[in-house]
């Protein structure tokens, strides 16, 4: 458990944070640029000293203004992957990787190299690497310093699209294979969704929202952060059965709430994470009899929020224990006479799942 309760004035930004993070899995810190994301992890790493408050990792106090405790970065054993990699130019890749190794552990060295695919780069100089390769070496270097916590400051932000695609699978493998709590700073909801289990929203130096990803993602406070067409929700479902004839897989959202998706090769009982866009859900009063849409689930209306543009309505639906957003036009909402508490049916047209997503989250609750 990492607990942070600090105040810090930095330039124009007045930070006042109270954050609790779990001791395992990936926690994303999400916010616009200037929200104080980098300042926050600089304070966790010890590079920046908060004005007051305390930071503790498990039982160990890293910072406490009242007791005048401020461990230096080198005393904290917290790995840090910087946005700009910061490889040492006068060391080879191997020299960089070994810089922080407390004890040489050939097994771990080999594992990290294999995980990040940097074996062929060992003798190269950092200046000859591509951006994605540099980030991989920086990640390896941080992992090999045997940290208790890994901080990653937008490792994809400085890369172009092809490089992002190149690095993403490595990050997903990292998330799945390394038994190490990771704090991942990002301003991309897409990255957050693919990697994180836990989400902290940072806005103007405050953290108004934090919790397990599925909860935070679907909450009403999160809605302003999505572009209207990107509004979506994230659900955890369980694999029920396979339908080989039509290449479909049946998932379960709870009792009597089956959901059909295109075939995925996973054993029954496995947890999967899926994302459903608000634009892919439509609402009907009565269950359609002859419809091409396979997934029609009973739902109750939790909230109705008209869009600022004045022609769309965001409807929060409750299906079983899950909350979903649906986008319909104001016209349709008025014609159907929808109001909070109504029982309706949600027709789900599209569900996105991708292979790497399952791999990253396979085996974890």
């Amino acid at each position: 458990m990492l607990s942070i309760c600090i105040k810090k004035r930095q330039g124009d930004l007045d930070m006042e944070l109270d954050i609790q993070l779990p001791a395992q899995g990936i926690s994303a810190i999400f916010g616009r640029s200037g929200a104080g994301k980098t300042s926050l992890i600089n304070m966790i790493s010890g590079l920046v000293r908060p004005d007051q408050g305390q930071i503790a990792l498990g039982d160990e106090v890293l910072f406490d203004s009242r007791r005048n405790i401020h461990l230096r970065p080198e005393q904290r054993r917290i790995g840090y992957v910087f946005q700009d990699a910061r490889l040492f130019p006068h060391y080879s890749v191997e020299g960089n990787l070994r810089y922080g190794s407390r004890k040489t552990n050939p097994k771990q060295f080999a594992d990290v190299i294999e995980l990040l695919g940097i074996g062929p780069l060992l003798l190269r100089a950092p200046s000859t690497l591509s951006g994605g390769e540099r980030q991989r070496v920086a990640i390896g270097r941080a992992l090999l310093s045997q940290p208790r916590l890994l901080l990653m400051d937008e490792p994809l932000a400085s890369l172009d699209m092809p490089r992002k695609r190149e690095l993403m699978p490595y990050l997903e493998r990292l998330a799945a294979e390394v038994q190490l709590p990771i704090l991942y700073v990002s301003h991309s909801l897409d990255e957050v969704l693919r990697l994180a289990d836990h989400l902290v929203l940072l806005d103007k130096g405050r953290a108004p929202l934090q919790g397990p990803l599925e909860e935070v993602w679907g909450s009403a406070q999160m809605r302003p952060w999505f572009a209207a067409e990107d509004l979506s929700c994230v659900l955890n479902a369980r694999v029920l059965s396979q339908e080989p004839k039509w290449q479909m897989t049946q998932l379960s959202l709870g009792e009597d709430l089956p959901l059909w998706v295109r075939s995925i090769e996973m054993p029954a009982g496995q947890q999967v994470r899926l994302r459903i866009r608000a634009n892919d859900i439509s609402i009907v009063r009565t269950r359609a009899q002859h419809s091409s849409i396979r997934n029609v689930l009973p739902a109750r209306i939790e909230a109705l929020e008209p869009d600022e543009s004045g022609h769309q309505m965001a409807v929060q639906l409750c299906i079983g224990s899950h909350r979903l957003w649906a986008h319909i036009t104001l016209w349709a909402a008025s014609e159907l006479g929808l109001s909070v508490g109504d029982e309706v049916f949600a027709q789900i047209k599209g569900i996105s799942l991708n292979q790497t997503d399952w791999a990253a989250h396979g085996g974890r609750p």
Partner: protein
Amino acid sequence: MLSEYEWQALILSLKISSVAVLWSLPPGILLAWLLARGRFPGKALLDSLIHLPLVLPPVVIGYLLLIGMGRQSMIGGWLYESFGLSFSFSWRGAALASAVVAFPLLVRAIRLSLEAVDRRLEEAAHTLGAGRLRVFATITLPLTLPGILAGTVLAFARCLGEFGATITFVSNIPGETRTLPLAMFSFIETPGAEAEAARLCVIAIVVSLAALLFSEWLARLTRRRLEGAC
């Protein structure tokens, strides 16, 4: 090719300059670091003091050394009594005079290079568990190396050419303090020795040129190592 007299002056010049620069390096790096990174009252004054030999007439420095470091003076007397170390009228004094005159050049080059070191790399090293000393030895110092080399060569060249402070402080003693410039001065003073003076002039040019070429080569080598092109 060279006469014994010329050899003597040349070797003495090289010896005095090398000793002066090598002894200046540790305090030079320390002061450059203080000026580049330190924040303390009197920093501007210290900066000016270090740069003073650059603008003072060398004869003033020689005179001050004579007063301050002579065997009759406080510091010089104490050094002689405690360590048997005497500067006056010896090659050590010549090295001290050269070191004082060349010191600002050394500090300046190292300081500029230190200021150009990316602090973020030092932060990265700290997060990898390296303490301050290790960061300085493995990150800061190697990245400052081009500046240290440039400063060393510059200071060395300045020492080779030192004349005023040396002749004031330790006089012009053959085999002890008569470096190339002093030897040349002696020939110019002597009627009918124009040819000898001209020969020394050529030697001085060759040595200086060699030093500059060497520094250029070193700079290119370190730059290539730092940028890591294989």
